[in-house]
């Protein structure tokens, strides 16, 4: 199991090495991986259908309770099948779609990475690993959206997508940690048993908020939906795979997975119904006004995700069943439509729906796939979509007081979705073929077979619902409901209100399709509201954030060393002064101090004179030399108090410092611009205050009882344990050797920094 999850990462890691060889016609071989995984996960169907769940544990960081705990139940199984199944088709499709692309190997690497992350996400039982895989999907999505990295729009969109989903991911992490804190467990299976505890905990609302933020950003819910249309800058296979079939459903998966844990609570249901409802209507209406095929599909995807959130929000058995079915329905028809759009784009070079018509005459198989998908999307019998839609109406109709409002919202959404589906799936293929497209030919079968398979399944599952009823859908609903439900999918439910609603939907959608012709004018009308859209508002907020950050950075990181030193010293002085004058009883025990010897007095006198020189001299060299004398005097004091190691080191360091200063000063212009009296007085005051505080601190430390345990330990064990008699050195190279190791690494980094900064500047000067 671990291997199956990680295999994509392994493949991605191998590709930089073997990619060059495989880039040509062999690239289709890479599709073997998702196909094998698909078959592997298919083999779990009989077991899962019998109500079994599989659990696999691999230790990772057991100390922190973070392990690779994989849990396979109906819900995970449905998602793994979608991921590997659609993944296989997308892999195959890509080998032809991006044939001969320079970075094809890179593309497959990202795709494989994504597939693994997504598998890990839906199989994780441990919520921390779930989060890690969650973020990995965001990261691979970032690479895939920005795949055409020479286009600025692509780069911007990918950054936006990463920003939104990554931002939400952090909320999710916080939510997961809180959940772990509240329940003491990071395992979803264990969390399910503690619903009562979680619901009554004061943090429940916070957890709910955090988890929702994660799910809503990932699944493009209002008001975070706007990254998804931007993500359509990615090559079409990516849009198919990530941004309609799998990744954007991660949020849905999360909500479904946590329904038994957090669900069935007033807040949970209300929030999800409102957000899901707003999203599905808002996006569906938006979809109607788009001209770009991928734009239409993007908004209808958002709308579909809204429907799913809405259904999970309803939370009744009917609704959750409808959600389970709709996940599959949507994945099948939307992936088909995306793949078809890719073919249209690939062959005609345009995605403007008002330009396209009659393509059936040149690419019939593609047209058939598209039309079948549009039918499933529209919910026209006998498609699988019809089944899905019936279940949705069934769910809204039985939702107590609000049934009518919810049903109306669902019907309106579905009418718009039907229109969008027809626009994307039927409009380009029927009618008169424009002259310029007459020479088009059918693309490689590698490209049109995958959408045909998906579209075909959409009809087969509709006609014969029993093939997926108990093996697949029932375990999914069971996992979400945490009980085993009793139902049977069927195409025909008899004459009922639901059927009437379906008819209204189909009628309304068809009516809209014949009345409304896509045009520039409609698009312009829709874009008029741009300034008040969530996207502009959030982007404006980020801009304010950016400029504030810039301002703050400018104040704090102004590049003047003197201000940094002032800031550090002021802060330390205030902190020290507060602590010293607030909490400590100040007194100096003069009896404890030793007498001042003659040597010490002389050294101190030398230091005093040097300090006066340093401060008042008008020559830089004198100032530096005087500083050196102060340093040497301190070495002498170290020697008096028997610290020869320290004295020696200090001595060498001071020598080198003076040399460095001289080197730099030697090359500076001769005249001296001394700082003005004001700043000198200010600096002097600060220095006096800080020095005074440190002296006070030192005197106070003498009053504290000395902890001699540590130094005694080192002194005793230096020879027995480390065979050295010089305790200082033994500490450096043995007892605290790891510290020394890090220090020399830091030193090296500093040297590299100096070297590269100076040399780099030299080079840029040379260029001019």
């Amino acid at each position, binding site marked *: 199991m671990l291997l199956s999850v990680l295999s994509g990462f392994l493949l991605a890691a191998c590709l930089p090495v073997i990619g060059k060889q495989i880039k040509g016609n062999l690239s289709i071989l890479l599709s073997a991986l998702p196909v094998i995984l698909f078959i592997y996960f298919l083999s779990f169907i009989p077991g899962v259908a019998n109500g079994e769940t599989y659990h696999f544990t691999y230790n990772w960081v057991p100390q922190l309770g973070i392990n690779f705990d994989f849990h396979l139940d109906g819900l995970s199984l449905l998602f793994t099948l979608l991921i590997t199944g659609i993944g296989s088709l997308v892999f195959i499709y890509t080998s032809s779609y991006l044939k001969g692309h320079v970075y094809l190997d890179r593309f497959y690497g990202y795709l494989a990475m994504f597939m693994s992350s997504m598998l890990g996400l839906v199989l994780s039982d441990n919520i921390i690993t779930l989060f890690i895989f969650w973020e990995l999907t965001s990261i691979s999505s970032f690479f895939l959206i920005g795949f055409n990295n020479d286009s600025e729009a692509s780069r911007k969109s990918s950054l936006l997508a990463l920003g939104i989903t990554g931002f939400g991911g952090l909320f999710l992490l916080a939510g997961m940690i809180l959940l772990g804190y509240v329940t003491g467990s990071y395992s979803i299976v264990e969390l399910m048993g503690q619903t009562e505890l979680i619901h009554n905990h004061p943090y429940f609302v916070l957890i709910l908020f955090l988890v929702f933020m994660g799910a809503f950003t990932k699944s493009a819910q209002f008001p975070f939906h706007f990254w998804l249309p931007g993500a359509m800058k990615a090559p079409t296979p990516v849009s198919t795979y990530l941004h309609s079939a799998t990744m954007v459903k991660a949020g849905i998966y999360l909500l479904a997975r946590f329904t038994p844990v957090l669900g069935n609570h007033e807040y949970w249901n209300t929030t999800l119904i409102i957000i899901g409802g707003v999203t599905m209507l808002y996006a569906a209406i938006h979809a109607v006004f788009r001209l770009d095929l991928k734009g239409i599909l993007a908004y209808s995807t958002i709308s579909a995700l809204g429907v799913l959130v809405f259904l999970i929000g309803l939370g009744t058995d009917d609704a959750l069943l409808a959600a389970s079915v709709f996940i599959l329905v949507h994945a099948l028809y939307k992936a088909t439509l995306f793949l078809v759009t890719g073919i249209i784009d690939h062959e005609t070079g345009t995605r403007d729906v008002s330009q396209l018509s009659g393509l059936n005459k040149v690419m019939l198989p593609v047209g058939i796939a598209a039309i079948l998908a549009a039918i499933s999307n529209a919910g026209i019998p006998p498609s699988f979509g019809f089944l899905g839609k019936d279940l949705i109406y069934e769910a809204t109709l039985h939702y107590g007081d609000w049934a009518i409002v919810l049903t109306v919202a669902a019907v309106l959404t579905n009418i718009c979705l039907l229109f969008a589906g027809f626009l994307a799936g039927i409009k380009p293929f029927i009618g008169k073929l424009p002259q310029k497209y007459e020479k088009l030919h059918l693309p490689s079968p590698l490209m049109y077979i995958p959408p045909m398979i998906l579209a075909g399944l959409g009809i087969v599952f509709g006609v014969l619902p029993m093939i997926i009823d108990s093996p697949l859908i029932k375990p999914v609903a069971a996992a979400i409901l945490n009980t085993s439900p009793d139902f049977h999918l069927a195409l025909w439910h008899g004459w009922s209100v639901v059927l009437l609603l379906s008819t209204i939907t189909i009628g309304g959608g068809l009516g809209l399709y014949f009345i409304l012709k896509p045009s520039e004018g409609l698009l312009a009308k829709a874009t008029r509201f741009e300034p008040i859209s969530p996207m502009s508002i959030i982007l404006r907020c980020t801009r304010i954030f950016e400029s504030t950050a810039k301002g703050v950075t400018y104040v704090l990181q102004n590049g003047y060393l003197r201000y940094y030193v002032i800031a550090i010293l002021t802060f330390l002085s205030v902190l020290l002064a507060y602590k010293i004058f607030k909490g400590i009883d100040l007194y100096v025990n003069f009896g404890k101090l030793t007498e001042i010897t003659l040597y010490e007095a002389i050294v101190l006198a030398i230091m005093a004179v040097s300090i006066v020189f340093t401060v008042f001299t008008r020559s830089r060299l004198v100032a530096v030399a005087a500083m050196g004398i102060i340093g040497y005097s301190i070495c002498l004091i170290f020697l008096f108090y028997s610290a020869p*190691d320290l004295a020696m080191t200090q001595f060498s360091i001071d020598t*080198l410092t003076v*040399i460095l200063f001289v080197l730099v000063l030697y090359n500076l212009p001769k005249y001296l611009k001394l700082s003005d009296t004001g700043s000198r007085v200010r600096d002097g005051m600060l220095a006096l205050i800080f020095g005074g505080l440190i002296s006070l601190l030192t005197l106070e430390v003498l009053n504290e009882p000395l902890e001699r345990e540590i130094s005694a330990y080192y002194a005793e064990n230096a020879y027995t344990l480390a065979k050295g008699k010089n305790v200082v050195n033994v500490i450096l190279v043995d007892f605290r050797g*790891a510290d*020394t190791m890090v220090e*020399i690494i830091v030193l090296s980094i500093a*040297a*590299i920094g100096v070297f590269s900064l*100076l040399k780099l500047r030299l080079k840029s000067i040379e260029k001019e």
Partner: protein
Amino acid sequence: MKTIIFKTASSYLLPLLLLFAIFILLRGHYLPGGGFVGGLIAAIAFVIHSFANGIEKTRGIIKFHPGFLMPIGLALALIAAIAPLFTGGALMTGLWFENPVPVIGMVGSALFFDIGVFLVVVGVTLTIIFTISETI
């Protein structure tokens, strides 16, 4: 600073100071000294030489860029640190040869660690000083 006396003295001082630096390095385990101070002294030796004869001459003596001493030193220290892992000890456990080596005395992994520190310090100091005096 290119007086004849200083120049002549510097060419004698260099080997002497380097020997002194190594002496300081080796005695560190028992008496005041160690890799860090030793490295600084060695660096000072080269700096004095470069003051007297110009950096080009000093570079001629070292033959390679002093920056290369950093990775070598780091590698040596790292090897000394992880060597005990292969004999079953914890990281940074001291490993010692059974018998003392003439002149140097007991030799163990701590000594190699110290030599690593020594090389890194020489490399870092010389890289910084050479770069600054060359570019400014």
